[in-house]
């Protein structure tokens, strides 16, 4: 058997259902009820408008640095719509759209972006992990959750998000490998937005696609047009069904684009041209989906206008509410909470020290 071809069939496919003009491939069109379609649209718009509002708030100094998601709404919502509320979401730091869909409050996000630990508060029944900033480090957690869910004989699945840059980290590799070896119900959703801050995909990997990285783990991998919410949904739905029925993990590469800056602290002009961005703006997932829904006859100008103003109101109310709530927050003593289940003696002592110091600070200010 010299020089034999041994892995002849590595099947990596690419999926697109809505084309750039919003025309649908009827054969592949997933069966989504109208209510869900409209809900998806609503969250796309909400996520987009909220993103714009957050950038504006940041520019006004009313929130700190944050990572915008504009352009990635389809990749996030198409995927997360395929899991149930009882399933698990493990986000990175750029999944605002997915988090909103799962029920995280707008005000909560504003509070977190104001550097208040309270923005991390989540209900007891939540099955969503908090935002994770160290790139790729959240991926193994998804494997652990999925392992635990299966151990408890639940049919829950876990969906974990990360970027193209994350695929270079050891944690991505180790987690993919563990998931495949243990055949746990995880859906790995890679938002390939072409950039990791200033590093383009071509500098991140030499592989033609990210999807083919699944081959290394003996795991199904698929590439989808990440600006095509139907394709993302279809791929995710298939992966979720496989995971839920014991078929193990799947890797989904959503090809999309980071239309805005990496975070509000970033200046993309240093490393990329406006033309490239413009080309991607023309592939806007929101417009594409809107065209589809109009063609389907479930959306029209009036509905859109109504939705827009509803969402503007919702965002305004959330900002007002958050800014009001924040007035009652920020007690420095809170920083000692939630470090351990019970506060150890050293921390009790340090807390007393901070109390004493703050009191003394207060007295000194009075005296001035």
């Amino acid at each position, binding site marked *: 058997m010299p020089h034999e071809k041994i892995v002849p069939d590595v099947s990596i496919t690419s999926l697109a259902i809505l084309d750039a003009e919003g025309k649908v491939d009827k054969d592949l069109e997933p069966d989504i009820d109208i209510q869900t379609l409209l809900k998806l649209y609503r969250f796309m718009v909400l996520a987009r408008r909220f993103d714009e509002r957050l950038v504006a708030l940041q520019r006004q100094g009313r929130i700190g640095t944050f990572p915008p998601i504009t352009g990635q709404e389809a990749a996030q919502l198409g995927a997360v719509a395929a899991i149930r509320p009882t399933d698990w979401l493990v986000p990175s730091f750029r999944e605002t759209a997915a988090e909103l869909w799962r029920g995280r409050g707008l005000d909560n996000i504003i509070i977190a972006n104001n550097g208040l630990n309270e923005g991390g508060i*989540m209900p007891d029944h939540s099955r969503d992990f908090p935002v994770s900033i160290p790139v790729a480090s959240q991926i193994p957690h998804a494997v652990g959750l999925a392992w635990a869910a299966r151990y408890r004989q639940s049919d829950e699945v876990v969906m974990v998000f990360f970027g193209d840059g994350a695929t270079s980290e050891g*944690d991505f590799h180790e*987690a993919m490998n563990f998931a495949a070896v243990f055949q746990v119900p995880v859906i790995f959703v890679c938002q390939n937005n072409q950039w990791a801050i200033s590093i383009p995909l071509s500098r991140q990997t030499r592989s033609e696609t990210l999807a083919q990285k699944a081959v290394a783990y003996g795991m199904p991998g698929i590439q989808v047009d990440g600006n095509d919410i139907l394709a993302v949904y279809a791929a995710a739905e298939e992966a979720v069904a496989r995971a839920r029925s014991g078929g193990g993990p799947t890797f989904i590469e959503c090809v999309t684009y980071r239309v805005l800056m990496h975070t509000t602290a970033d200046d993309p002009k240093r490393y990329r041209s406006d033309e490239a961005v413009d080309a991607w703006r023309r592939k806007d997932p929101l417009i594409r989906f809107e065209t589809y829904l109009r063609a389907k006859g479930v959306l029209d100008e009036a509905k859109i206008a109504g939705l827009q103003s509803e969402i503007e109101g919702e965002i305004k109310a959330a900002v007002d509410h958050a800014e009001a709530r924040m007035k009652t927050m920020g007690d420095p003593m809170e920083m000692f909470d939630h470090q351990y289940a019970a506060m150890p003696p050293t921390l009790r002592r340090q807390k007393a020290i901070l109390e004493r110091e703050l009191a003394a600070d207060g007295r000194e200010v009075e005296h001035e």
Partner: protein
Amino acid sequence: MNKLTMVQALNLALRQEMEADDSVIVLGEDVGMDGGVFRVTDDLIHRFGASRVVDTPLAESAIVGMAIGMAAYGLRPVCEIQFSGFAYHNFHQLENHAARLRWRSRGRYPVPMVLRAPYGAGVRALEHHSESREVYWAHTPGLKTVIPSGPRNARALLVSAIRDPDPVVFYEGKALYRAFREAVPEAVETLPIGQPQIAREGSDVTLIAYGAMVRPTLAAAEALDVQEGVKAEVIDLLTLSPLDDRLLVESVRKTGRAVVVHEAPQSFGPGAEIVARLMEGAFFYLEAPIERVTGFDIVVPLFSREKSYLPSVPRIVRAVRRTLDQG
């Protein structure tokens, strides 16, 4: 009561906790069929099956990362890192997540996991197999660092660590694994995490140690008593962090003198914190500077020189004498 080695005592703790609570899961490299390279998980796979005793691929970061996910789900994973010298691979998982997830999620996701790892020199092992770098964890807020000194307290502390609602780094002195046996009751015992113990009472000087250094320290105390009538109090820290210094401070207020013993490198080592705590709590009672008998600020030498590297009974005795001769 059965006389057990520390390996057997740890194995007993794992077995009983796994029997009592099906959320306790063991995972790591070679913990299953092989029973762990030191046999601490011996036979568990036969008792509890491969779904509770999980042989993992070779990747420390994923082992800890996976344990974090399991713990957040509600299980109580006990993961083994084969040697503490390989626990740096998972440093970011411990610091970025295990230590913070409760805090980040405002209590929604506690991380009740244990990371067990053999540490320390004295068993003629290869490079990276003899380090004592517990300070890395002790300095990391959100973690607890527990280091037993013998079979009985190892068993009791491991039970407590497994039941603890927070992540515990549990360092096992590999020189202790088979060094001696102790009576260990079959009935489950626990020991409170975060509380040092007086291992020997005394009034002339306070010796502070933990883990594998407790035995030479006790031997030094014994020698000092027999040879020159010096009554040394020996404190066994058991928990390095969060460090409760009250017992230490009390003892040194009584004796006025102290010697700290550890095999970790001296600079920025655990002994420094003990000295600082005693400075803060017992300065006006101190008759002489506190001595540190420790490892050196060097890579632990390969095994032929290990003996000269490690704190020894004569070195501890001489440090105590220096302390007594001063002030």
